């Protein structure tokens, strides 16, 4: 695959409902690192509004990227969020494309590189 094809795929990915939102990408990245997390932990850690977090999770679940299930614990029922295989593949692919883009532009090692650089195809 050429770099241009990769950039095109990245551009298209960034236009999708899931990857256009930093909160949704953040949730997927968090789940990539910890695999499963409770709703309460996610809410407290991200400090997003409850309704907002619920909508982000709903969107990710509707796209088949996460699984939300209620689990009984000795204390109380907890809502647990898990990354699906599809979700894992999607976020891995997103990271690969970003890495390729970063390598192509030689951004590695530059603090805050994303916010200071024009994206590909932008004149």
């Amino acid at each position, binding site marked *: 695959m050429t770099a241009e094809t990769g950039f095109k795929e990245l551009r298209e990915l960034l236009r999708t409902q899931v990857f256009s939102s930093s909160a949704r990408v*953040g949730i997927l*990245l968090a789940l*990539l*690192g910890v695999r499963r997390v409770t709703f309460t932990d996610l809410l407290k*850690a991200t400090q997003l509004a409850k309704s907002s977090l619920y909508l982000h999770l709903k969107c990710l679940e509707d796209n088949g990227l996460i699984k939300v299930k209620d689990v009984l614990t000795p204390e109380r029922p907890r809502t647990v969020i898990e990354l699906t295989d599809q979700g894992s593949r999607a976020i891995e692919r997103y990271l690969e494309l970003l*890495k390729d883009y970063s390598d192509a532009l030689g951004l*590695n*090692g530059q603090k805050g*590189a*994303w916010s200071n650089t024009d994206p590909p195809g932008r004149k």
Partner: protein
Amino acid sequence: MDRSDLANIALAEELAKKVYYRKAKKVMGLTYLVTSSYVPLTFLLSVLFPPLVEGSLDHLELLVFGVYLLVVFSLGFQLRRIPIVAGRLDAIAGSRFSSKRGRLNRRYLPFVFAFAAVALGVAASVTFGLLGEVLGAAENLCVLGLILSYFDFVFSSIKVSALGAPDILAIAGAIVGFLAGTFVNPVFFFAFSASWFVAGAIVTKRYW
């Protein structure tokens, strides 16, 4: 695609790292609590089950030690992906810190050292008798140090400092407890347990 799309990754990374931090703190608190129960449990075992056959208590303590290591290892194992993902994010977005600490080949290193230290300690206590007790205490301190260094490794990968007041209490308690417990009076081993219990209770309460 415009600049704001790409800036999203920085915001997403920040959000993900907050979740990693909370999870790591939670696991750290649980580790403190689990480890703190080791000394009281072995003391209780020595009272409840005086050795019927010479050396049987040693074997029981060894078994308990192994179980504790396994539990602590499985707790730490939950965090194994954090340094890897954080390292990948650093490689993408760029960072003023080195991302080498989060690489795959170093993530199990603390545990490899921990098991090596245990094996050496066991061999020393069997071979050298009294000297073995000193070596055993040193080995326990090494294991505790390795547990803490593993958490430090995880926290470093997400660019935060792990060292809060409860952690300083835990470090001080381990040093004082094991040194004074070995050279002054075994009752000081409980100082280690108490400090780790308090540290664990504080951290767990805050992040549960």
